[in-house]
Every structure is written in structure tokens, then in C-alpha cells.
């Protein structure tokens, strides 16, 4: 089982991680904004995560840490 940690305050809501997730378990939060005014990414279902790290590979701001 894989675990993801997000540095939400650094997320710019670019959505690239959402695009590349093969399990489609990431989305841009609709009801949250961080201190910088961006809507950050959030996980819909941690249990589905396979730890492929595609999201972290795509993230330009290194906000995702992947643990397996």
C-alpha cells in the first residue's frame, strides 16, 4: 500500500498530477484554497494508490512525497 504526502501550501493547482494519475484518484479541490490562493490537489481514495509516483514525477513544485 502506498502513501502520498502533499505539501498543500506549495501546490499551485496546475492539475498536471491529476492528468497523469493512472488510477484517477487525484483531483483539484473545489472548496479549498491555500494561502497563495490556489486550489490545491487532494486524493479521493488513498487505498487505490499503487505508488507509481507518476504524480510526483509530473509535479513541477515537488510537493508530493511517495512512500511504499
Amino acid at each position, binding site marked *: 500500500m502506498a502513501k502520498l504526502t502533499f505539501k498543500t501550501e*506549495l501546490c499551485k493547482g496546475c492539475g498536471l498530477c491529476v492528468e497523469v494519475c493512472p488510477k484517477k484518484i487525484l483531483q483539484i479541490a473545489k472548496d479549498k484554497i491555500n494561502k497563495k490562493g490556489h486550489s490545491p490537489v487532494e486524493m479521493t481514495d488513498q487505498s487505490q494508490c499503487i505508488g507509481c509516483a*507518476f504524480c*510526483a*514525477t*509530473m*509535479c513541477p513544485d515537488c510537493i508530493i*512525497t511517495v512512500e511504499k
Partner: protein
Amino acid sequence: MIVFDKPKSLTDAPLHYCPGCTHGIIHRLVAEAIDELGIEGRTIGVAPVGCAVMAYDYFACDMVEAAHGRAPAVATGIKRANPENIVFTYQGDGDLASIGTAETVHSATRNENITVIFVNNAIYGMTGGQMAPTSLPGQITQTSPYGRDTNLCGFPVKICEMLSQLEGPEFLARVAVNNVKNIKNAKATIKKAFENQVNGKGFSLVEVISSCPTNWGMTPKDALKWIDDNMIPYYPLGVYKDRSGEAK
């Protein structure tokens, strides 16, 4: 067990780049190469004038800010001063392919033992989206508002192809960072470009096809698709020169 984390040779400073800008990915790939080769303590980076002008805040190694286009000359000085240092430049398309063309060509032909990271996003980002020497025919920019007219401004510059005609350089490759597969290949290529320097092989340049969602007027996701549809057909990915590889 952590399988993916921010590399140590990036500082904690939050990046100022636009949401979805590929600079962040490329910075990380450079930092990963430095981490994996264990060279942070002896690496010196040369920052350009362009969106990455503040790269000196993002890399944890010693950093030098260069004048526009002159990074390869500055890098030549740093490398000649202390050859055991690993010296890299990080430059955009204006820096490397417009004002810095002479420095680019001559550091390549001298086979300076440096690593050059060339971020090609076909536009001048920092100054607000003007035409670059790498802008595509017909591309609309602030200084080509009716689309790049090849009758007026000529055709885009293809750096890897151009430099591959020279005997001097060791390694020239073009990669992209618009999808996970391309990013993994880009990482390996950038690492090789640093490894070449560590092994004293000579001038290694990696041209990274990148996006500029803000000035292309697209979402980050659409910008990555634009790379596939328009940039890569014009700037084919691949290794354009690999002297040591060809010698085998």
C-alpha cells in the same frame, strides 16, 4: 520507505514559476542528477537571464548569476579556475539561442567540459511572451502578433542539429518533459550530461522541450499537448551527438 521525494540539492525556497511551468520539473531533474552522482559539494551552477534568473535561490550548490547569453563564457571561467568543480549552465531560448549564440557555439566547439541545460519553450517568458529564435512559423507572440512570418523573421533555430555539425562537442541531445515517459528519459539524459563532465568527456548539452502555459495562452495540460502536436514534430527528440557512444 520513501520512494519519491524532493532532491537534497534543491533548497526549500518555493519556486516562483507559473502553475504547470516545466521549469520546476527540469530543476528537479538537474538536482536529482547532482544528488545521484554525489557531486553537490563541488557543483557550481550558472543562472541565466530569463524566468530562471533566480535559479540561484533554488539550487543548494554555489551559484553565479550571468549576464544575458553569457553563461557559457562565465562557466568557462569557473571551470578553468577550478577544473575539479562540476559546472553547469541553465539557459532559456533567448539566452542560449539569441544573444548568446556565439558563446554557445564557441564553448561547444572548444569542447569545454561543462554541462549545458537548454530550456526551449519557443517564447520569451520572463519579459511577457515575445518571439524567440525557437518560436515556430506562424506562432503568435507579443512581437509576432500576426504569427511568425518566415519571410520577415526567418525560420526557427535548431540548436542540437546546428551544434552536431561541430567536431568539438561530446554530447548533444534533445528531450521533452511533457509526459512521464519523456520525463524519465530526460532525467537519464541529463544525468548522462553531468556524468560526462565528471568523467572529463567534454561539452554536453541537453535541449529540453518545455512549455510556457502563461504566454502560450493555454492551460498547463493543453500546453503539454501542444508540445506533442507542434514542438516535437519540429524539434525531434533524440541524441544528436554522442562521441564516446559512437566510438564504442
